[in-house]
């Protein structure tokens, strides 16, 4: 058997195995009809109301934080959904703490006075879709939907939309394929882990291909055992051919993602020099401020204390300030001990609350500490550079 025929045979077998795996997945996960007549129904952030928490509208989303002294938020909206048509609810939400208690809320026309609750699962800051068709209270017409979050919510929770889904077979397949092909751009954590598509996946592609390969090889081995054909390939050779094809399939997905990343990189950085590339990067605003600050500092390395609320900005400011000798605390948002400070030292601050400067008196202080004589060498936007006197 030639290489080409072996690979084609392996590819067809793998495809059949994948169909079997996906069919099994659908059999276990389609809650109602495989081919429902209803189509998904989406509600955007503009249709939502916040009954607990402080809302802030941002383009295309709603950001909510708990009201002062509270630890919960509740978002609601009016709906008109036949429960028999819509088996699942999917919230497009980001920023939910991992340990938060999240509940889906709904009211029905059948018992409008009753507020129903179901526990939702948080995965990597997002909410997993919830299947409601098995819930006895998911009945009649759903007239109101919402969700409640309770926990240590420090950053705003961003709600983009909610979609009621019939969860038919085609929709589930489309969703899973969408998860596999979702663009995964570079992040600082891309050297730690790659999801292989969407951050949260119900059916990871490696597992599907592994099971499909197992089925394909198992079927081939059985066929060769009980229906041997002259000239057929030994099953280990066939198994490796199947592995090669499966590897090619999953690497094609990676290559597709890489091609999209290359386009994005080219759009962002092509033709830029060092300075322009930094200005085009995610923290371009910080780079611009540090660059201005450096221009006001001596050419020889000086001592500079870096203050910022976020660890990333503390560390990144220090990095941009090199070769000046920067002090910062990566892990805690703390100011330097007063004893460390000397006349001639610089203090660079970026997005730092609790920093006060009196230009008339020429005094700076932070976090209610002692006032220090200083000159504001640069103040621009959210950043400032002080020279201690």
């Amino acid at each position: 058997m030639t290489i080409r025929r072996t690979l084609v045979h392996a590819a067809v077998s793998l495809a059949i195995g994948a169909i079997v795996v996906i069919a099994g997945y659908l059999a276990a996960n389609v809650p109602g009809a495989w081919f429902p007549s209803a189509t998904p129904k989406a509600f955007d952030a503009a249709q939502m109301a916040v009954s607990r928490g402080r809302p802030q509208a941002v383009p295309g989303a709603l950001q909510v934080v708990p009201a002062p002294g509270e630890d919960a938020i509740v978002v609601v909206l009016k709906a008109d959904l036949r429960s028999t048509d819509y088996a699942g609810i999917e919230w497009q939400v980001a920023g939910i703490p991992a340990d938060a208690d999240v509940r889906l809320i709904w009211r029905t026309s059948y018992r409008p006075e009753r507020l129903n609750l179901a526990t939702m699962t948080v995965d990597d800051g997002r909410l997993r879709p919830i299947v409601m068709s098995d819930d006895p209270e998911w009945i009649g017409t759903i007239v109101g939907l919402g969700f409640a979050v309770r926990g240590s919510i420090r950053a705003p929770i961003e709600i983009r939309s909610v979609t009621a889904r019939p969860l038919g077979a085609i929709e589930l397949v489309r969703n899973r394929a969408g998860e596999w092909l979702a663009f995964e751009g570079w992040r600082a954590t891309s050297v730690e882990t790659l999801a292989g598509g969407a951050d949260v996946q119900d059916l990871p592609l490696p597992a599907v291909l592994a099971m499909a390969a197992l089925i394909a090889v198992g079927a081939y081995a059985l066929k060769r055992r009980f229906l041997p054909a002259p000239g057929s390939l030994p099953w280990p050779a066939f198994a490796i051919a199947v592995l090669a094809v499966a590897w090619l399939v999953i690497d094609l997905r990676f290559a597709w993602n890489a091609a999209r990343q290359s386009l994005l990189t080219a759009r962002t950085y092509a033709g830029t020099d060092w300075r322009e590339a930094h200005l085009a990067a995610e923290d371009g605003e910080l780079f611009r401020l540090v660059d201005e600050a450096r221009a006001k500092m001596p050419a020889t390395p000086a001592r500079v204390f870096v203050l910022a609320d976020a660890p990333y900005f503390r560390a990144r400011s220090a990095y941009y300030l090199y070769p000046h000798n920067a002090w910062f605390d990566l892990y805690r948002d703390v100011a330097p001990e007063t004893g460390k400070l000397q006349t001639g030292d610089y203090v660079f601050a970026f997005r730092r609350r609790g920093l006060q400067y009196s230009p008339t008196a020429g005094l700076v202080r932070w976090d209610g500490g002692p006032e220090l004589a200083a000159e504001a060498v640069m103040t621009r936007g959210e950043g400032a550079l002080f020279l201690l006197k």
Partner: protein
Amino acid sequence: MTSILAVASLLCTLAVGRAAVALAWREPSREAGGAALAWGIAYPVGVLVVGAWLRALSALGVAWSAPVALAPIVFALGILAWLWRGSAIDGARRAARAIAGADLAGGARVAWLALLGWLALRFAFVLTESLARPPLPWEAWLDTAARGSVWHALRSPVPFVPAAQWDGAAYLAALPQGHALLPLLDVFTGLVVGRFDDTVIHAPWPMFWLAQVLLAYGAMRVAGAGALAALAGATLTGTLPLANAHAALGGTAALPLATYLLAAAIFAGRAASTRALADALLAAASVAGVLWVSRAGVLWLPVLMPIVAAAVRPAQAMRVVGGLVAAAVVAASALARTDPFAKGLPAAPPPGAGALAEQLLLLGNWHLLGYAAIALAALAWRQWRTPALIGLSGAVGAGIAVLALFATSSAGRATIGPTGVLGHATTALAPLVALWVALVAWAWVRDAIARDAPEALAAESAATPPAPDAAPAPVAEASQPHSPAPRPSPSPPDPGPR
């Protein structure tokens, strides 16, 4: 222009490394895969030479500058010109012929060119990414480029100290520092480029990727695999997604560590069986790289012990390697239980074995490598226990014990958060596992065809003319009967360059 100079710095380092390798190993192309191994180890060795040179200069009180930093390159080019006098053009011709797959026929040649094109695309991707953006991973700028930029600006490796010891005299190290090799490499790139341009400073990382691919190809050829099977094995190594991410983003120690570990495994095995000085020197250089490139390097050294033991004691290889793997498992369990690595760190739970399994089997980090390794361990047990593979199998076993240690203790957490520990640790081991998977798979197929379908082999042999460097695809490789020798080398010499 900056990008061109950055690429020039890569070529300079490669030339230095290749000259160093050539001094130790004069005729690598005498054996199949030797040329690929020599070129594969060249860049990692070049990095060691460049790092040592910069260290030596600072020890002698010489301020770094481009002319001084480039002195070894001039020396290296001189050595290569002398060693390759009269044979360079012939070598280049043979290399071009081998790369074009001229000795392969029909579908095998199409597959060869397709795989080569695929790898070339991947290299282009990681190289262009590494030459485009400011450093992104935390360790890349908070440790490697932070020290690199200060050292480059001050032309000297000034000390960095922990925050508690900072008094304004030395620089503050936000993370527990890695070893000096990678910041020195940043400095070298900066000196060649003419300024510390951190958008190109991590251009060397794709070269570590390339070194892995060449080493995997060479190791498979040396083990007796044909050119196409060896390239398929190298493709396995070159398409590991998380390793690709490290190559594209650069600045972290895991990928260089993986390269040195892979090289150390290959050359330690060769040195123990051939007792050749060249292999011993290259093995020693690779071990030095493992130790100098990362603080975690020392934890990976036990991985090499089964390889050496199997080569030194082939008659008792199974027993000795089994004992070493068992010892590694026991040691890893004891260390995980006592967790001496937690000293001085804030209390935090280790990632756990479940997270390790998720990383290996469910996420997009390693494609199907985890599944393939498990399947071959279960199905191809006759092959991985053979004298030719038992050492590498033991290395993978010991490597998994080390990986489990990272998953169940605070090892590695000193420099990166618990979430990143597994990603970095698996990156260090994955190329070695990929090589093992490729070798075991190749041996499994070869033996199965020799046993079950020799007629397929005969037909293939009749259809394909014998070629000097081209054992065809796995289906045709059963003509090479399985040899129990530690290093069966049935293929004729590589026609590649020296």
